[in-house]
């Protein structure tokens, strides 16, 4: 009985297992332990959370392998790490480190202005950000096994994530309802392969899971995006830039598991301490969501 690794089903399979869960950004092994204790389904290992990347400026790159190894050793749940858009050599390093998912992320400084990573060439699965359906399908065509909204990372402002989710889900609904002959026009306008457009039209969903990321800061934010149609959430700066990270992490896990139960969301939201300070998107110097295409 031969074992076949790295098939699309195996890569997408891990994302299926993360559904209904919270993936938390962590910058130390200690934070990773706090995240796991709070019920995170996975952690994203990075050197700086997006809010700090935004504040510090400069070029943001893949994390030091020593940090990733320390975080892998600290927890039993899956560990993800970020590579720059188009930086396949960083992704090769992350695969060699045996991270469980690579995030080809706009939060880091893009390395290639014309090409995303050829993700089919890797055994490790990839998650990619998207702001609309065309972008999501281009990433799937390149081999992404999971799509997340980009949102606007590091702002604590959920408005962009909601915009991206609504755009992707709204277009999926419209495409699924459209007459067959219009699918070619959809493919042209989305700048996406027609076979993927056909697949989405037939299934009424993306070929891979759709998670939400970018600006989530509260349990109610998680409940909002889960009810809109996200299948899980990434929380970056929102946890470890808040007053009481352990409690907030636990509360967001509960709200993500029970998004349609406002009594539970109310209970876990009570007395959480200050959320991370938020930023108005209109006033930003750098829009991370504009990175990638």
């Amino acid at each position, binding site marked *: 009985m031969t074992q076949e*690794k790295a098939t699309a*089903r195996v890569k997408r399979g*891990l994302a*299926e*297992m993360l*559904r209904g869960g919270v993936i938390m950004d962590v910058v130390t092994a200690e934070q990773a332990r706090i995240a796991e204790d709070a019920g995170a*389904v996975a952690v994203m290992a990075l050197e700086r959370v997006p809010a700090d990347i935004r504040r510090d400026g400069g070029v943001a790159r893949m994390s030091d392998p020593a940090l990733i190894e320390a975080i892998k050793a600290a927890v039993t749940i*899956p560990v993800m790490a970020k590579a720059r858009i188009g930086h396949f050599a960083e992704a090769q390093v992350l695969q060699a480190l045996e991270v469980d998912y690579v995030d080809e992320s706009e939060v880091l400084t893009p390395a290639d202005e014309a090409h995303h990573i050829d993700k089919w060439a890797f055994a490790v699965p990839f998650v990619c950000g998207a702001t609309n359906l065309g972008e999501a399908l281009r990433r799937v065509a390149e081999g992404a096994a999971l799509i997340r909204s980009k949102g606007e990372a590091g702002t604590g402002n959920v408005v962009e994530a909601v915009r991206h989710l609504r755009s992707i889900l709204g277009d999926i609904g419209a495409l699924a309802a459209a007459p067959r002959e219009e699918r070619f026009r959809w493919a042209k306008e989305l700048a996406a392969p027609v076979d993927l457009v056909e697949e989405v039209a037939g299934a009424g969903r993306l070929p891979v899971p759709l998670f939400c990321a970018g600006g989530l800061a509260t349990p109610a934010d998680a409940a909002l995006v889960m009810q809109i149609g996200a299948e899980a959430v990434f929380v970056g700066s929102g946890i470890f830039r808040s007053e009481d990270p352990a409690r907030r992490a636990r509360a967001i896990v*509960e709200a993500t598991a029970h998004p349609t139960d406002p009594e539970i969301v109310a209970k876990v939201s009570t007395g959480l301490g200050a959320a991370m300070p938020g930023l108005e998107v209109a006033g930003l110097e750098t829009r991370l969501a504009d990175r990638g295409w």
Partner: protein
Amino acid sequence: MGEGGAGRLRIGVLALQGDVAAHATALAEVGALPVPVRRPADLGDLAGLVIPGGESTTLSLLLSSSGIVEPLDALIAAGLPVLGTCAGLILLAREVVDGRPDQRSFGAMDIVVRRNAFGRQVSSFESDVVVAGCPGPPVRAVFIRAPVIEEAGPAVEVLAEIDTPMGCRAVACRQGAITVTAFHPELTTDRRIHEMFVSGIKTPHPHKIAIR
């Protein structure tokens, strides 16, 4: 049967975290009525329950906070048929190796399981597996950061085994009304495992518990 079920068996799917939707689809395709279970009240009138794949540490925490542990313990003790896949298998095992010390388990099946037995995601795989009681060709089994069964007690019937770097290991077992798989039958379109579970539910009478 439950309202709207029209003769279909009501099978709960523990819906706190994990690939709940895939199991619900599979159950519906074999003629059952999938019912999401998030709170104790959802456990009423079920003919069976599926504990899906997911992260077992997360599920363990959410089971405790949702108040489901005690009533579900009682239902399992009373013979509620349960299908556990991957994380579900871990939650049903007597003992978990390489888990977290505070990890919760129902201890419903006399097995010792090793969590993440094959290593990290790059070692996840799919493979043809012969499953006892499944007629026809082998089952295409998808193993995602999968556990294996290290030891099975005398009351446990081993349904499937595979060769692993650690030697031959059981990956599907049955004990009484409990069936577990280390792999994910819900991730393929082959419905024989769900069919076997649902058709094996002998008592058409839903298990009832008193809801406080």
